């Protein structure tokens, strides 16, 4: 890449297409990712609302179900197959297009170059390509709703052999499943491009004085996540190719010999379904950290800003992030305790899994240490950040239970697991997304979000997620299996009907409350109060620019950084915060 001189600084493109659609500006790409993910989040939430409704009213005839899915809901009554396809699509959309997309690709793209004083990402065109590959991947996934047989049934984990043998495995396992695999492979490629861009930008384009140990913790979150993505998505892509060949080319990577499906013996020989699980979870577990680590960075920053205190134990936070990222690659087997693995392997995976509790606890205590005796400003962003800590702990401690093989034997495939991963991976990440949105919206749009609406949204959401997911743990303790479309017909589960009704009502209410966020987003973008340069009196470099920042950010005037990222309440300083480029060089 050739270097340019100042006189060659390109101006903001005038054409609509280059400015808003095929933009190479990291800020526009960040917003594109964000909006794609908001759409995906509402679609994914709608699917889960339908699932919850079906679980408690399995016999209900809903006319428009029948109109939307003539085969999946004949006469308006949802079939178990349709339920499973909704579940699969809900999981896939949420994991990939929401939890992986907003915190890393959305916020990261917009904020990262600003925070390190760079003018853009290292490879702007690759960045654009990465977004449009993600968008294509989303379109391909959604196309599965409209093909013969509908969307796939196998869950977001797409376990072989049922994912590998084609339409014989059920409606949706034909073309729908093929589209799913293609979509996920496209997503992998897009994520790899993104990861290369993030790593290069962070390593090479930091402004003068921005040493690694002066990086805001958000940047550390994005860096570690990018490295994890680089390794994890490559494995998923490899698994995807083998799965696709098993489906389309008659190979037997994952399909065992003598498999009988629908009274037919399949001709395949010798494949290993467990091999798919190993490859998938080698990606799948780090994926959990891809979803949560950028959020951890956001939370550290938000808690520090609104407590007017430095992050407690900055270095420990960095090392904890690195440790979590590393351990995340060594624990995939804990998703497979019930697969018949050797107890010795299970113990090894268990010990490693439980050891993630150490860096996680370091982070939690440091968050508490950060807010302890701070001058708390309970903005909406701060409330969501505090909510994150609460949910992270609540979801984390059940991980300590599931990480033990002997307990997992009982809980595996029950609602206990559903409750656990929704709390720790889903809700915690989503609360971090909300915290980040309220925090950076003024910078991204030049307008403030409504705090009143935001707080109402927070309290309903916070209470709502506990009301939805805590009872699921109880259902799991009672032995309630997951993935069942209708469990009212089992005697031992009948007593749980009222519990499930409660969960469903809480879920519908919480889902509806998300419309408040949508209204807030749209209204504030158009009519919100004008945002000043630094409304939160924060210290990182993005707040040294106008809101929204100009194209190429600081241009050639990139400031020199002279201090760490969270110098609040510095004794003797003229105000209670010092921005990273303010003051004497240390």
């Amino acid at each position, binding site marked *: *890449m*050739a*270097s*340019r001189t*100042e006189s*060659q*600084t*390109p101006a903001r493109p005038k054409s609509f297409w280059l400015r808003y659609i095929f933009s*190479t500006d990291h800020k526009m790409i960040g917003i594109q990712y964000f909006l794609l993910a908001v759409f995906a989040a509402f679609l994914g939430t709608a699917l889960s609302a339908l699932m919850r409704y079906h679980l408690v009213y399995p016999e209900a005839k809903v006319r428009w179900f029948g109109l939307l899915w003539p085969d999946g809901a004949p006469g308006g009554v949802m079939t178990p197959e349709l339920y499973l396809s909704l579940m699969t699509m809900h999981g896939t959309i949420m994991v990939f297009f929401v939890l992986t997309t907003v915190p890393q690709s959305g916020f990261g793209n917009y904020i990262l170059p600003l925070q390190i004083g*760079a*003018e*853009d*990402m*290292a*490879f*702007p065109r690759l960045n654009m390509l990465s977004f449009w590959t993600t968008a294509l991947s989303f379109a391909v996934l959604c196309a599965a709703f409209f093909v013969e047989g509908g969307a796939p049934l196998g869950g977001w984990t797409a376990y072989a052999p049922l994912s590998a043998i084609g339409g014989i495995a059920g409606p949706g396992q034909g073309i729908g499943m093929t589209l799913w695999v293609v979509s996920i492979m496209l997503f992998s490629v897009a994520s*790899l491009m993104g*990861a*290369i*861009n993030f*790593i*290069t930008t962070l*390593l*090479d*384009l930091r402004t003068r004085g921005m040493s690694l140990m002066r990086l805001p913790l958000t940047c550390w979150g994005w860096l570690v996540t990018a490295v994890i993505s*680089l*390794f994890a*998505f*490559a*494995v998923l*892509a*490899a*698994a995807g*190719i*083998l799965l696709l*060949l098993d489906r389309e*080319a*008659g*190979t*037997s*990577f994952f399909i*065992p*010999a003598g498999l009988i499906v629908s009274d037919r013996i399949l001709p395949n*020989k*010798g*494949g*290993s379904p*467990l*091999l798919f699980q*190993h*490859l998938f979870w*080698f990606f799948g577990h780090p994926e959990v950290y891809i979803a949560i680590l950028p959020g951890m960075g956001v939370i550290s920053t938000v808690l520090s800003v609104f407590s007017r205190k430095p992050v407690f134990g900055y270095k420990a936070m960095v090392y904890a992030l690195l440790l979590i990222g590393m351990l995340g690659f060594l624990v995939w087997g804990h998703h497979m305790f019930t697969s018949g693995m050797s107890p010795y392997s299970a113990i090894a995976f268990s010990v490693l899994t439980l050891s993630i509790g150490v860096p996680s606890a370091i982070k939690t205590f440091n968050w508490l240490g950060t807010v302890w005796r701070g001058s708390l400003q309970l903005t909406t962003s701060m409330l969501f950040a505090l909510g994150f800590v609460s949910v992270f702990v609540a979801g984390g401690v059940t991980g300590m239970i599931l990480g033990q093989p002997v307990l997992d034997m009982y809980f595996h495939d029950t609602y206990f697991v559903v409750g656990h991963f929704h709390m720790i991976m889903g809700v915690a990440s989503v609360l971090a997304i909300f915290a980040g949105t309220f925090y950076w919206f003024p910078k991204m749009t030049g307008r403030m979000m409504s705090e009143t609406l935001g707080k109402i949204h927070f309290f309903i959401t916070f209470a709502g997620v506990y009301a939805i997911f805590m009872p699921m743990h109880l259902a799991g303790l009672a032995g309630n299996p997951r993935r069942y479309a209708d469990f009212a017909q089992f005697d031992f589960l009948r007593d749980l009907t009222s519990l499930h009704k409660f969960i469903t009502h809480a879920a519908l209410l919480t889902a509806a409350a998300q419309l408040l966020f949508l209204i807030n987003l749209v209204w504030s973008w158009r009519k919100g109060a004008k945002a000043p340069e630094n409304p939160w009196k924060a210290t990182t470099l993005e707040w040294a620019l106008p809101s929204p920042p100009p194209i*190429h950010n600081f*241009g*050639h005037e990139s400031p020199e950084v002279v201090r760490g990222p969270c110098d609040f309440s510095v004794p003797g300083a003229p105000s209670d915060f010092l921005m990273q480029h303010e003051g004497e060089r240390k």
Partner: protein
Amino acid sequence: MSVMAAGTGRRVSFTGLYAFLATVIMFFAAFTSAMVVRRGASKDWKGTPAPALLWVNTAVLALGSAAVEKARRDLRAADRRKFNIGWTMATLLGALFIVGQIVVWRQLRQSGVYLNSHPGSAFFYVGTVAHAVHLAGGWIAMLYLNVRALRLQLGPGRRTAVDVTAIYWHFLGLLWVYLLWLFQFWGNA
């Protein structure tokens, strides 16, 4: 379009390349582990004895790498004429390798070894095709640089793309040696 200080662009290109190489290594590591597990999972493993042409292709690839390296050094020494000759040779050798691989796949098919014949053949096809796809990407970059080279648009002060492509090409050469070992020695053992 970024506005960067002099030298930053070069550093960025190398970092981007190394990050990319890391992910390619990871991809082939996953592929290898799948191969090892699949072989152990069942008794149906058979090797895929290579047609003799595969060894010729290997030699072509090695020669290509040598030509790339020679050309790269010539460019650094500001000898554009030698660079152009060397780089053009490397581009031709790269094309020859890809054509050679296509012929290898045809020969295998003609002798009745298909993708779905047995696990050994499946991994052979997947591995060699994946390598060829990565190589084709590098070859397109090589061809593009060749056009620029012949227009005399490159020089000792404009050689980052050449260096990056050269390193990528050497990497793919080493990767090929590894795959060859995996298929021919480990796979047939």
